[in-house]
């Protein structure tokens, strides 16, 4: 199983800190899974211009192809200005319309205010649904107060991250066996 962790921001450290925990939890619990962590802060990604995702070059091509090859994607995003950052939206724009078909996508969100809780419901889920993702319904919402100097200090958040990883893997396995059973019915 190929799992890609995608930290969607160039600004700040909370999302990538939380994603580090998440990827470590995944590596410990599922040593056989193939894990790749992409922190967008470390890449130089160009804006989508509508071309086929394989026709980009450099970092842009690497990220688009890595995401497309994944079975499961764990997206980490901060909420800025009551919205997801442009860096993350750009990743969606780089990919084809049905990019997440047969992929499981789960989310982890960091925000400065609890008032941003529904941004995921209102902005990210419709995009993922449109792109045909199998969405893990519950996401981990982490507030500023749960961090202290690049560490997560709230055990409840850590437990929720563990559950998110478990749910992501379980849904991926389940969905893949459902799909195999369905495809086995076809005679071609």
């Amino acid at each position, binding site marked *: 199983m190929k799992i890609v962790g995608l930290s969607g921001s160039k600004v700040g450290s909370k999302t990538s800190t939380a994603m580090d925990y998440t990827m470590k939890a995944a590596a410990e619990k599922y040593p056989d899974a193939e894990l790749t962590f992409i922190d967008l802060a470390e890449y130089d990604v160009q804006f989508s211009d509508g071309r086929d995702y394989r026709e980009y070059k450099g970092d842009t091509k690497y990220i688009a192809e890595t995401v*497309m090859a994944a079975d499961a994607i764990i997206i980490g995003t901060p909420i800025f200005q009551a919205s997801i950052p442009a860096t993350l939206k750009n990743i969606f724009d780089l990919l*084809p319309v*049905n990019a997440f*078909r047969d992929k499981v996508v789960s989310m982890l969100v960091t925000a400065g205010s609890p008032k941003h809780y529904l941004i995921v419901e209102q902005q990210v889920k419709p995009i993922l649904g449109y792109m045909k993702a199998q969405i893990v319904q519950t996401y981990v919402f982490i507030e500023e107060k749960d961090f202290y100097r690049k560490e997560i200090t709230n055990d409840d958040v850590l437990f929720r991250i563990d559950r998110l990883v478990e749910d992501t893997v379980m849904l991926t396995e389940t969905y893949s066996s459902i799909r195999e059973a369905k495809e086995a019915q*076809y*005679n*071609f």
Partner: protein
Amino acid sequence: MEKYRINPSKGMEFGLYTLGDHIPNPLTGERISTQQRIEEIIELAKLAEDAGIDLFSVGESHQEYFTTQAHSVVLSALAQATEKIKLSSSSTIISTLDPVRVYEDFATIDLISKGRTEIIAGRASRVGNFDLLGYSLRDYEELYEEKFDLLLKINEEEVVNWEGQFRAPLKNARVLPRPLNGSMPIWRAVGGPPASAIKAGYAGVPMFLATLGGPATSFKRSIDAYRQAAQINGHDPSELPIATAGFFYAAETTQQAQREVYPHVNQGMQLINGQGYPKQHFAQGADTRDVMNIGSPQQIIEKMLYQHELFGHQRYIAQMDFGGVPFDQLKKNIELIGTEILPAIKKYTAKN
């Protein structure tokens, strides 16, 4: 219709198109040589002619896994190798070519083929074209509109005065040679949403509509929009032919057809579009209401007649070599077309 060398009373035309696919066989991993692929395309056109198929067309695609980038050169070979089948391009990427050169090439092919040639001009679905041939993708829309207009003008006027943004102006320019009968049919290739079909309608040119998969009714919208736009702009829709083009594969039974072609369609989509073809969508494609003509000859006849009734189109063009289907299977397809499908289609669509 006469202007476009189409006689609806003889029934719907049936054609083949290839983009020169050059993909490894998904079952064996083997890939034939470029030369063999081109030879097989020439052979295929001859077999198509013998089977009574109306048209053979070759498209241009500048990317890996294709062999007919120089499609007009291949068409020229076909003009020599065949005697009566119509020859066409599907499509010529006019956006990144010079309309004058295109016209010179195709008028020459028309002379070699003794008046059997036409042009289907499209606007590319790939960025690779633009990079390779030195154009900017930012001009995507404008390049196509300007060059397509110029191509039409050259076809209609032997002496051309023209000025545009993407090519040096033409002053009293004679574009030679002229086609056998002075002009050639020029079609506009249309894909995707109705907006593109509407432009073809406004221009009053024949429409070649790509209908790869999905419910036939969803393409009906583009066809209606095309005819309506033509009417609004003062053209007579009954004089404008429509061709549809899509996946085709026939075998003795529908199940056999699906089994034989699915690995090719899936791998072709994977290599060319970066995502495979979902089995569920493919399975649904067997339904009579879906445009994908994959199945037993009887199933295909039913589908084609359903589409004809729905669209009222004059020509259907089959793409049956998508994803590296081996030559022997293509030959078998032509046999099924010639012996079973074509006679039935002609019988039910001819106006006697």
